[in-house]
């Protein structure tokens, strides 16, 4: 039941974002409760006053880091940021984000594609955060991305999956893993994503900003597992009319014979 991306095996289908936690302690506890093997980090200017190394904390929680390019608005910035992350963190994996709008944080499709092509050429394992456009997802796959990571709804919005139809089209066509990334609000969103055929779920705010992040991390772990198992178990079809679950034969005649 493990997830394989670019030849690397992840035991968990859940990838954690680390943004939004109150502090590193809560983050560590939640990441551990989530069971995730991989957790994203952002690249920011060194803060001389910062306490603790997120990389070390994550490693103690049994989790490897996946740097992202959050905050980049152009292909060029995203490529440089990925290269800096590779230098700093000794990983050639990158969650590629190229944002097109600071209000919705939706990706810029043309810049994203350009950055993906450049990073693939430069030897990166590219996991692009993309919108839910099936054509763009296909182009990213064609460009050599190791997975595609469509959103359900905007980052941090908690709206869940706004367009089930597009997500299904992406899943049906993809030959690389599909990771739902962004928009998850609660456990049932994650279950639904897996049932629709996603290979994994990446989430941050729904756990980090929940009232009880550790409990929500546990819920998400169960939710992803429930969705994966349900998909494999083969759900019943939807029917417009009822279908009795008690036998229609052998019913007693109890009414007065009169």
């Amino acid at each position: 039941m493990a997830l394989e991306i670019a030849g690397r095996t992840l035991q968990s289908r859940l990838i954690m974002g680390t943004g939004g936690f109150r502090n590193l302690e809560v983050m560590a506890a939640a990441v551990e409760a989530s069971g995730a093997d991989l957790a994203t980090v952002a690249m920011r200017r060194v803060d001389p006053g910062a306490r603790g190394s997120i990389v070390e904390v994550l490693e103690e929680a049994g989790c490897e880091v996946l740097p992202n390019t959050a905050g980049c608005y152009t292909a060029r910035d995203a490529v440089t940021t990925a290269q800096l992350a590779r230098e700093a963190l000794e990983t050639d994996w990158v969650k590629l984000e190229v944002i097109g709008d600071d209000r919705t944080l939706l990706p810029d499709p043309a810049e994203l594609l350009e950055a993906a092509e450049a990073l693939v050429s430069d030897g990166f394992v590219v996991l692009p955060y993309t919108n839910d456009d099936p054509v763009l997802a296909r182009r990213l796959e064609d460009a050599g991305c190791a997975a595609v990571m469509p959103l359900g709804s905007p980052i941090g919005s908690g709206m869940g999956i706004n367009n089930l139809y597009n997500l299904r089209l992406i899943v049906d066509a993809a030959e690389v893993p599909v990771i739902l990334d962004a928009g998850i609000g609660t456990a049932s969103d994650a279950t639904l994503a897996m049932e629709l055929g996603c290979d994994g779920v990446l989430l941050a705010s729904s756990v980090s900003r929940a009232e009880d992040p550790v409990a929500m991390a546990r819920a998400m772990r169960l939710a992803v597992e429930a969705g994966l198992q349900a998909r494999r178990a083969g759900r019943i079809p939807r029917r417009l009319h009822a279908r009795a679950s008690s036998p229609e034969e052998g019913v007693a005649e109890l009414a007065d014979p009169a």
Partner: protein
Amino acid sequence: MTEVVINGWPRRLPADATLDLVVREAGAPEGGRGVAVAVDGEVVPRAEWPSRTLAEGQRVEVLTAVQGG
């Protein structure tokens, strides 16, 4: 002295100051573990830090991993 911009702040450095000094001054941990550096938007590999000096007006970014995403 050379005037450069480190992580957005103007700084005056000795002309022969190398990048490993800059990294340390920016507040990075000893040895610059987990840190990467760009000069004018180009990555400078760690191996070049001890020998690389800066020119007037160059912008240095010293980055590390933080919570995010």
